């Protein structure tokens, strides 16, 4: 029976590229299947949350630090991007770069002093930061336009075609950035840096003993995480085309945390599936939308208690993958 399990998992492991390619093809060609504007919008929204989940996963899943301030990094990325498209117009893509840079910088400023706090205190500090950013956005009128917010945010233009929601451009634009985010997370996961993060998550002290500069590693991860949240912030701004201080609330941060915990901290496929389920369901069942946060709350509690490894448990169940040409006798 156990052998069968392993064979099944190995079979899945082999076929995963085929399944992955099929899913990718389906996802990319979604606008051609006559998907309505609304479906495309929901899909784009799912993608943006997927980027956010990957971003929080870097710090929560890999390094074991929970942040509830990701909405603030989105806000900083979005506002910086907007300022550099309106007040100092430098073009869409450079402005997007500036937005990401500002988010990363904010990650550094918040992370450097606060990441030495122990778990729960760090959560509180990020919550406070999130509220603070909101108040600053409300009061710094010359930059953020205050509570009035900023409308008609420019959309990217590629080869002379404006990417809108109706022509599917926004969707593909999101997919591009989602792919970039997945690649970055993948690269980090299998790098020396990534292994250091996992070591910190499993045992901070032991990691320190092993010669890992834990503070520097955590702060670096946080900066990457904030930068990805900045990407999501810019995408969000170009999709909704309207940003005001109340756009980026604690609710968003909580939803992201919920996705990460539901999807299984550390697992990337889990992240994507979990985003799809949690963001699509309130749209699918609008009658249940009222109960949305009750369900999110339940998920947080149930997952933390019963399945901390998440819905799709990471790699732990698979047998260690041996290099080519090496065999062991399984008896």
């Amino acid at each position: 029976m156990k052998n069968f399990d392993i064979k099944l998992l190995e079979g899945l492991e082999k076929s995963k590229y085929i399944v992955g390619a099929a899913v990718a093809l389906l996802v990319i060609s979604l606008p051609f299947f006559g998907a309505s504007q609304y479906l495309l919008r929901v899909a784009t929204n799912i993608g943006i949350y997927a980027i956010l989940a990957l971003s929080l996963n870097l710090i929560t899943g890999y390094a074991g630090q929970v942040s509830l301030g990701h909405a603030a990094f989105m806000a900083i990325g979005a506002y910086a991007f907007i300022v550099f498209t309106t007040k100092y117009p430098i073009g869409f893509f450079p402005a997007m770069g500036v937005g990401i840079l500002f988010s990363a910088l904010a990650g550094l400023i918040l992370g450097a002093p606060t990441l030495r706090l122990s778990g729960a205190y760090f959560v509180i500090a990020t919550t406070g930061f999130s509220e603070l950013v909101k108040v600053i956005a409300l009061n710094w009128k010359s930059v953020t336009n205050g509570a009035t917010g900023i409308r008609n945010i420019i959309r990217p233009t590629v080869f002379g075609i404006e990417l809108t929601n109706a022509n599917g451009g926004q969707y593909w634009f999101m997919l591009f950035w989602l792919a970039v985010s997945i690649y970055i997370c993948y690269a980090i996961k299998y790098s020396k840096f990534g292994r250091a993060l996992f070591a910190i998550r499993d045992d901070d002290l032991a990691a320190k003993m092993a010669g890992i500069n834990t503070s520097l590693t955590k702060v670096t991860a946080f900066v990457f995480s904030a930068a990805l949240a900045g990407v999501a912030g810019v995408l969000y701004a170009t999709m909704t085309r309207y940003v005001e201080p109340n756009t980026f609330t604690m609710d968003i941060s909580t939803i992201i945390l919920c996705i990460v915990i539901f999807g299984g901290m550390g697992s990337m496929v889990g992240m994507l599936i979990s985003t799809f389920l949690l963001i699509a369901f309130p749209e699918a069942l609008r009658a249940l939308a009222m109960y949305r946060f009750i369900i999110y709350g339940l998920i947080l509690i149930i997952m933390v208690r019963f399945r901390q490894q998440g819905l799709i448990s990471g790699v732990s169940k698979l047998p260690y993958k041996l290099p080519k040409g090496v065999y062991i006798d399984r008896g």
Partner: protein
Amino acid sequence: MKKALSLVLALAIALSLVACTSTGTTTTTTSEDQTTATTEQATETQNLDPIVLGCSGPLTGNNAQFGENALNGIMVAIEEINADGGLLGGRMLEVRSYDDKGTGEEGASVAELLISDEDVCAVPSAAYGSSVGLVEAPLFQEAGLVAISNSASHPDFSATGDCIYRNNLTEAGELQYAYQMPQVVGAKKLGIVSMMSEFGESFTAGFEALQEQYGDKVGFEIACVSWFTDGTVDFAPNIAELINAGCDTIIFFAEYNNFASFAIQYRKLDPNAQFIGLMTCYTPDLVNLGGDSVEGVYLYSCLNPNSTNPEVQKFVAAYKAKYDGAEPDFVAANAYDSVKIIAAAIEQAGSADREAIREAIKTAHVVCTAGDLSFDANGDAVKSVVMFKIENGQFIEVEGAFKLWDEFVASLS
């Protein structure tokens, strides 16, 4: 056990998704009211397709009251039209209403939902307020779906394009009345209390601009402008500012729920100051919440339930009968009128196509609670307002309080 639990959880969500994709966007969370409204007549006219209208508004959140009132106004209009045999020779009206929670994100999502739903031919009630309205407007315009807001006042709203209409006062129009209020009630030192919101910021700026222009002619000065943020319940710091500035009259630029809290706390310290509220304060809920503290408040509204206009009487009576004696507010009345003018446009075009309605509504006009309603070239309706004072918990009309703007300016010098 643990595995089973999480599997159940996952299954439940997966099932919900399947349920969605199989029925697509035609699944709608229609309000209970709607089903009752349409089933009554459904038996006789089963062979004809209904005409479907869309509605987006906050049914939860701080402004839920306004979203609900707009939907109520729509329901009253639909029932009335359906009882008269529907439109285009017996086609019944129906509404699909979605909760936008009063946020831009949800608003945009609801707008796309209505646009993608090919049954929806027009939207008589788009988003409460300008800030969500302005997110939805470009989407409706791009899709060529006629949408009317019953509460947006921002000048850019109807300027979005020829699909976007405003059945409410423009900000400039409303300011002309708001600015007369302190003069009418004999204010000397006026205190402005304003919420840091899209509306509060631009309305305060507009009011101050008028004061700059006419300040030396009117009888009052602005002694203090005090700000608060959305969600504030303790106004003590604001009240200290106002009392310190020696204000004898306070004008309040935010919705009734904030105003009630403010009034209660202000009255404890100064029972004599006069209060002025805006149109969004004209609702019986203000009296429910504020009690004695809102006694003597001056405010205005574009719906006068005591008016002798038979259309108003008909609407108010129908509304009260349907909603257990609840008083309609301006949003409900405007939403009712918006359905009426869309119905007129459909009859005029002889079709319920989006494109046909888009053309017909430009010239459509209808007699309704606002008198003879039609839209001007900007897409705005002409509205006039009436002033009220709260006495013994009732809204009592203050007759002849307002002048036309030109007359008001002329009367100053």
